[in-house]
């Protein structure tokens, strides 16, 4: 009886959480419209959310591309199809790994920082102080971060994919002896600008939206203690990573038949 009761309590809590997140989103989106007038705040956040995430994204992209080329070559060479290496690397990166891995890295690097920052602002009553001064924390704190996260994700994903393709070129052409012209031409033959690259960008936009939403909401909703902030940070990384992977399946099944 008790376990059924705790299940019910858990479900109610989950639904209330979803409702709060939805309300928070609608507030944040109205504030985003207002913050467009003060774009300096957004630029500042673009730096801490986007530019500071760039290094880890570029390094990971390079290594992912190199590993893809290495593994792909070993499989393809059995079928005598190593000329298709460029296509394998490019399609894997543009369709899946570019958006998904960037979103996971983004959740770990930028999302956790957003949650911790906002959570700490709440714990040290900075948000309450802003309200006392008739400054809306939604507009001043949340909206610039939200917009910056949403804007920087597709840019980061594009750079990840490009660096990955270059990494694949380094290993495939430099190390394994695939012809450079064949590497690029097999790619251009098979990668469609609309179906593959554009859809990949849509994916990264959706992921950027979801990760930033979860991160900012968890920070704003955190219990204002040091323990609460640390829990909220964990929830951000776990929740947004799961959301990204789940959404990726849905989007892939809708986009690529």
């Amino acid at each position, binding site marked *: 009886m008790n376990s059924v009761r705790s299940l019910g309590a858990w479900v109610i809590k989950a639904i209330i959480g979803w409702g709060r997140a939805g309300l928070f989103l609608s507030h944040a989106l109205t504030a985003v419209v207002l913050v467009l007038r003060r774009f300096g705040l957004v*630029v*500042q956040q*673009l*730096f801490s959310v*986007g*530019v500071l995430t*760039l290094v880890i994204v570029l390094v990971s992209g390079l290594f992912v591309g190199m590993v893809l080329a290495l593994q792909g070559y070993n499989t393809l060479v059995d*079928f*005598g*199809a190593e000329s298709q290496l460029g296509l394998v690397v*490019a399609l894997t990166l*543009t369709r899946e790994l570019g958006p998904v891995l960037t979103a996971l890295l983004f959740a770990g690097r930028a999302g956790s920082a957003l949650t911790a920052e906002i959570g700490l602002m709440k714990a040290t009553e900075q948000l309450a102080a802003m309200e006392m001064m008739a400054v809306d924390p939604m507009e001043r704190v949340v909206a610039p971060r939200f917009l910056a996260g949403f804007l*920087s994700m*597709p*840019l*980061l994903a*594009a*750079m990840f*994919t*490009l660096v990955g*393709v270059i990494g694949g070129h380094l290993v495939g052409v430099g190390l394994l002896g695939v012809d450079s012209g064949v590497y*690029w031409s097999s*790619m*251009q*033959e098979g*990668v*469609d*600008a609309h179906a*593959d*690259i554009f859809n990949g*960008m849509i994916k990264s936009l959706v992921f950027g939206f979801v990760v930033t939403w979860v991160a900012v909401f968890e920070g704003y909703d955190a219990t204002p203690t040091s323990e609460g902030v640390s829990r909220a940070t964990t929830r951000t990384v776990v929740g947004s990573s799961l959301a990204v992977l789940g959404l990726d399946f849905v989007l892939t099944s809708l986009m690529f038949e």
Partner: protein
Amino acid sequence: MNRGALELTVGLFVLAGIGALALLAFKVGNLSAANSGESYRISARFDNIGGLTVKAPVTLAGVRIGRVSNISIDRKYYSALVELSIEPKYDNLPVDTSASILTAGLLGAQYVGLDPGGEETFLANGDRIEITQSAVVLEHLIGQLLFNRAEGGGGS
């Protein structure tokens, strides 16, 4: 970090992102090839297309001049109707050009190879290639070989 340097780095970041996207579209994707004007479409009827797929290359003398844009079944003749979209600069294919479905390498992907004829009039948008040669299906080939051998063995 002062304000100017911050804005500069963010600007560079945004530019790098957009540049990466453009490079992806042009260098990795086929945007540069797709934008070379409106291509024209011709069709060809085959008895069997084997493993031909949409987007497969169409070649003339081994050079790619277009791609397969659509494959459907002709309900009247129970044959495959393949629509080829050809780049506009190759607008001088004679009307008696023949099309055959070939395979790149032993196990490679299938493509459509065109052999130009000798007529003075050229194929235009919506025209149909009349002379076609179907794909070679390995099972048919083996079946035919076995049949011929059996026939030859019985005769001697």
